[in-house]
């Protein structure tokens, strides 16, 4: 970097020599072309980028608007603290805690699978694997990440559950274990790809320094490289957890539709997402109380995943800046 940027040479040479992209762009941005075509294109593209803000606004406002409609008829306090979820019939009990606990059961169960396996895969691919292995595994992980969730649901229901039932007679047809297992498998690619990216971002110099002081490979990996990449790895864990919370079709197919708070992995449960599907599959008339429950549950789901994602993206952004 040159200290006296302002005085040396013209703007373009400076920008090329110090690679300062934002500087060039800010100067060019100040003098855009004013021809009609250029302006039209610029404004069109700008409006496209604003569409994304519009989508967020629509999501938030729709969820809030219709959730409030429910809370006019049912108290918010009872909704958040109630331990019974019986949305159908005359006397409704709309305590969301059973759905939240079902969702957490799946997310925790899935994390038990996806976090260690995804982390292990990432470390193996970045530290131990040969080049051939890496180029073999990248497409395999991509294929796994591209498999639709409904396929995982089918797999849980007709392959994992029968297998579990063979192992243990107490397992019901719809159970939280098989759903957790397949959701965990489906989240492995997310964990491994983001963790691997974080590990690859650790500068080679740090690694070489560790070897230079005589550390063996195990210590270099576990005491230098992984700690250096830990923020990215944790971000991948959070993202995987959020993904498991929002997972829909696999849990709808495999985990059943019986909301409860027993924390028994062998019986059926219901998650927030599965409840939304259940309502929308039935013929619930618009404007009824059941209809508004999907917005309240959806709002809850949105807030939970949004907070997790926000934390993870902030962490990722920070580590990217550290090792730039």
């Amino acid at each position, binding site marked *: 970097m040159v200290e006296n940027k302002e005085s040396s040479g013209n703007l373009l040479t400076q920008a090329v020599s110090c690679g300062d992209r934002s500087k060039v762009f800010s100067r060019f941005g100040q003098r855009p072309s004013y021809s009609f075509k250029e302006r039209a294109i610029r404004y069109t593209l700008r409006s496209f*980028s604003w569409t994304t803000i519009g989508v967020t606004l629509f*999501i938030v406002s*729709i969820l809030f608007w219709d959730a409030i409609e429910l809370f006019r008829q049912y108290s918010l306090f009872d909704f958040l603290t109630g331990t019974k979820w019986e949305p159908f019939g005359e006397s409704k009990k709309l305590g969301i805690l059973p759905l939240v606990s079902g969702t957490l059961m799946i997310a925790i169960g899935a994390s038990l699978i996806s976090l260690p396996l995804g982390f292990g895969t990432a470390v193996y691919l970045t530290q131990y694997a040969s080049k051939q292995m890496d180029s073999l595994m990248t497409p395999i992980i991509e294929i796994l990440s*591209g498999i*639709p969730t409904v396929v995982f649901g089918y797999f849980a229901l007709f392959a994992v559950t029968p297998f579990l039932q063979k192992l243990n007679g107490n397992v019901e047809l719809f159970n939280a274990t098989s759903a957790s297992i397949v959701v965990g498998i489906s989240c492995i690619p997310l964990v491994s790809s983001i963790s691997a990216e974080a590990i690859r971002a650790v500068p080679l110099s740090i690694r070489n320094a560790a070897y230079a002081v005589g550390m063996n490979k195990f210590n270099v990996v576990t005491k230098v490289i992984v700690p250096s990449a830990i923020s990215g790895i944790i971000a991948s864990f959070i993202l995987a957890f959020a993904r498991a*919370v929002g997972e829909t079709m696999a849990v*709808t197919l495999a985990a059943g539709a019986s909301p409860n708070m027993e924390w028994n992995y062998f019986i059926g449960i219901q998650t927030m997402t599965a409840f939304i599907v259940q309502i929308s599959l039935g013929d619930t008339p618009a404007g009824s109380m059941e209809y508004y429950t999907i917005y309240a549950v959806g709002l809850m789901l949105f807030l939970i995943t949004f907070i997790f994602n926000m934390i993870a993206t902030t962490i990722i952004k920070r580590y990217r800046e550290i090792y730039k």
Partner: protein
Amino acid sequence: MKNEFNKTKAKYAIFGVLFQTFCLAANFSVILFLVILLGDILIQGYSTLNWNFLTSYPSRFHDKAGILAAIVGTFYMMLLTAFISVPLGVGAAIYLEEYARETRFIRFVKLNIQNLAGVPSIIYGILGLTLFVRFMDLGRSLLAASLTMALLILPIITIASQEALRAVPQSFRLAGYGLGLTRWQVIQHQVLPMVATGMSTGVILALSRAIGESAPLVMVGALTYVAFLPSGLLDSFGVLSIQIYNWSSFPQKEFHALAASSIIVLLAMLFVLNVIAIGLRMYFQNKIRGINR
């Protein structure tokens, strides 16, 4: 003293081997899961996968049921979704990478796109149901579903396109400006031809996500019992993923095999898309590498 040192060394050697074995096992478990998953589905669905199945409409009788309407519906939905979301997503990426200055607002827009990509798909379903199906009164139609899907994959396309645009060396743009080109001329003649392949990789992967996704379609109502091919934008339609869901939740065993057969068809479509995407990406990476050299 020396003995102590050797002990520590031996201890770490064991830990090292254990750790490496764990990582290796994790790696192979991924392969194993994929093989079991694909193998199981192939075994369960192979026997019912035949020409008749591919060219028949859904039916109450398992031996007459087929997925023609679902295949065609999936195909139409994919085209329509691409038609809506690609210009929007790529345009937004071009604006953010090529035009926008790093203001606070633009940083907010970028963060928002990141977060939108993490919003569960079922939430988009609620959005589609409320905004397109009910408010805009499009009904449970092909258009409503495609609009919903387009919004779902919009952030994915934008993020992928942004990454492709960032890979273009800055010197290319500067050379263009140096010749007196305007911003759009640089984008049109220099940048876009270079990133076209890289962008299409992202677009294809996003579209393959769209055809596999089913939760939003359950909300906006893709039907499973469609005995005709959609002829207009406002027609009701069926898609493969919903058909799979529906047949999986039937109690009769025969339909489960049909679900497996449909999964094979769906995975085959996804596989073709993925191979194209990966091929394009390798081409793109070689091109960028060639330029940087």
